[in-house]
């Protein structure tokens, strides 16, 4: 079963995303800040990390860079999620080492397409 780690501080977003992905048959783990995200990704080695970019403790950019910098987690598939939807966000996310990028609110079909493309 494909395992997905959701790193998201917003409770509703976390709730929605995890429930909807579970319904689609994925195994879901959740982290609520960037540091917890790095820790859980390192220990759990999920197939996909859905990383919110504006996170407390350690933001998504830093968390991604940290994961990429460690040998074990350098190859993790990371999709950046952001509600900022700013011009240039996409480039910034790719540059920070994300494999893909999507905006919030989540369009589930679009996100599923991106997940499947990376698997």
């Amino acid at each position, binding site marked *: 079963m494909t395992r997905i780690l959701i790193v998201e501080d917003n409770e*509703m977003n976390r709730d*929605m*995303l995890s429930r*909807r992905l579970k319904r689609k048959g994925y195994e879901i783990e959740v982290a609520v800040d960037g540091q917890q995200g790095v820790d859980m990704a390192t220990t759990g080695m999920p197939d996909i990390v859905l990383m919110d970019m504006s996170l407390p403790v350690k933001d998504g950019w830093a968390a991604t860079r940290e994961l990429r910098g460690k040998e074990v987690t350098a190859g993790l598939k990371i999709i950046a999620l952001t*509600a900022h*939807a*700013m011009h240039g966000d*996409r480039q910034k996310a790719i540059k920070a080492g994300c494999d893909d990028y999507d*905006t919030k*609110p989540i369009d589930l079909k679009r996100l599923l397409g991106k997940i499947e493309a990376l698997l």
Partner: protein
Amino acid sequence: MQGSLRLCNLPGMGIKISQQHSRKASARLDLLRQELIAPILSIEGHAVLLKEQIADPDCLADLKKIETAASQTRTLVDEMLVAETQKREDAERDSQRSGFKHDLRNSVGAISGYSEIILEELEDADELSEDARAYLDNQLADSFKLLKMLDTLFQAEREFGEDSGTGLNVDIKSVFDSFDRSDKETVDVISGNILVVDDNDSSRNLLAHQLRRQGHTISTASSGRQALEMIRKSKPDLILLDLFMPDMNGFDVLQKMYTDEALRAVPVIIITGLNDKSAAVKCIEAGAFDLLIKPVNPSLLGARVVACLERKAWHDKELAYQQELEKSYTFIRKVFGRYLSDEVVQQILASDAGMQMGGGKQVVTIMMTDIRGFSMLSQELDPQDCVKILNNYFGVMTPLIQKYDGVIDEFLGDAILAIFGAPVVTENHAQQAVACAIEMQQAMGEVNYNNQQWGLPSIEMGIAVNTGEVVVGNIGSETRSKYGVVGHHVNLTARIESFTVGGQIMASEYTVNQLEPEVSIAQSLKVEAKGIKEPVTIHEIIGIGAPYNLLMEDEDLVVQPLRRDIPVTFRCLSGKAIADEHAEGVLTAAAEGVAQLSAVEDMEILTNLRMNIPGYPSSEDDQVFGKITSISDKKDGQNQYIIKLTSAPLSARKYIQSLIVQP
């Protein structure tokens, strides 16, 4: 009221406008807020409806989350807009906007996300009712709409969305730009009489205090009943209404208030705590202008109150304008009578130039119609039947005249006087009148069909059409005034009318010269008329070309010989005065309404005759009037005249008819 109908600029009632702060900015802010709040209100409304459709506790919990998210969204929108009205450094502004954008996307995302989750789960459990699906779809659509607006607002990268318009009716950039400029502009600030209704002393006093500081005049009520009394007595410009009060809650006050027509225009802003959301939505549905959540942010309160007062001021103005308009409408109706089409009334109201009520010279086309021999007919008929015939006739003709933009100036007995080309000035009044006349003649079939159904005699109409300069205007006294025409062209029209026989249309050369379409003319004659030196040429019109394409059916009036000649004595009448000469002749042939007269006298075409049929009828009153409509070759030294019977007693008509040899 008479004369000018120009509408004056009417101020709002108790609302004062003075030049101080930014009105434009607040008005734009208000517009923008309305745009953004509308989908949230709709989402909240649908959430209330959904509660009745959903039994599953998990789904109900998700619905609660939607409500929370909607409320968050509303608060964020208000906070964001308040922030936009405040002066900030560029860097601070950018970071604030970015924060609002992030939070708004998340909260709107929760609305759409949980709506989708509920949809999916109900569908899987096979518990999705049609209504619930519709409500959820609406919530989704509203949240997407809102998201699109927000994207536009923040000029976000829309990488994935199609760019199909912003969904906003407000030019947002100009709204935001106007905030940056606002402190440089001198603009208006609005103040009004506001009633604050709240049972809680401290919150009532706080609101009153805040609003007084902003320059408004405040009265307060501490209960719903007291509020209603005060509203009825003093009609405030705006009411701030607490939703929860012990004696009568805000919703009841609102409902009671809005059953009173006079109070319906008074705007109400509902003040509520966070947890009475569904009741607040009910109030909005019941007509409240807006709702504010406690604790009320003072700048937000100020902006909302001003926006609301401004709207009320406009509403008052509009209402006064409407009343003025209604007065004008009534005035026009009074002056023109009830025979003016709504369209013409609208045109008069819409045009300044068309409303020259004082009187002026204008070229118009005048139409006069007359029922042939009606005065004689009216003596024979019951008054009721007479009225029945006339009402039937006017009833058929009135809409036709209105159809061609004619204005019926008067019904004179059995005659109609109509004007084309005034009071609303038109270019094509001559041809409109001619086409109208033809259609009116054609409609006589309908008129007479009705008469036959009622066992009443058939009637015939002659129509005269003339074009010329006349004085048009509002003629009369203060109490009885009427739009009318005066001038020798009116008299000429009446004169032309006297030359027509039933079924005929005679138009003066002045009219015919102005016709653009081709016309079919059966015959042309020169006639003399009082007040006009040269004889006037008049034409018998039987058809008019495109765009009307109307042709009168040929009257198949071939006279049939009579079984025996009818001896008559006759007098030539000049106009309607009876000349003294006396002559003898015989009627040798006839058709319905027509007789052939054989006589030695030389007479001209269109001469009017009065005939006596010796032995029949005996009474002086029962005379037969006719007009020479054509002259055929002499027979046995006798002139042969075709006489159209213009006025004849029924019995005389029947007598002549009875002697016709049936072919």
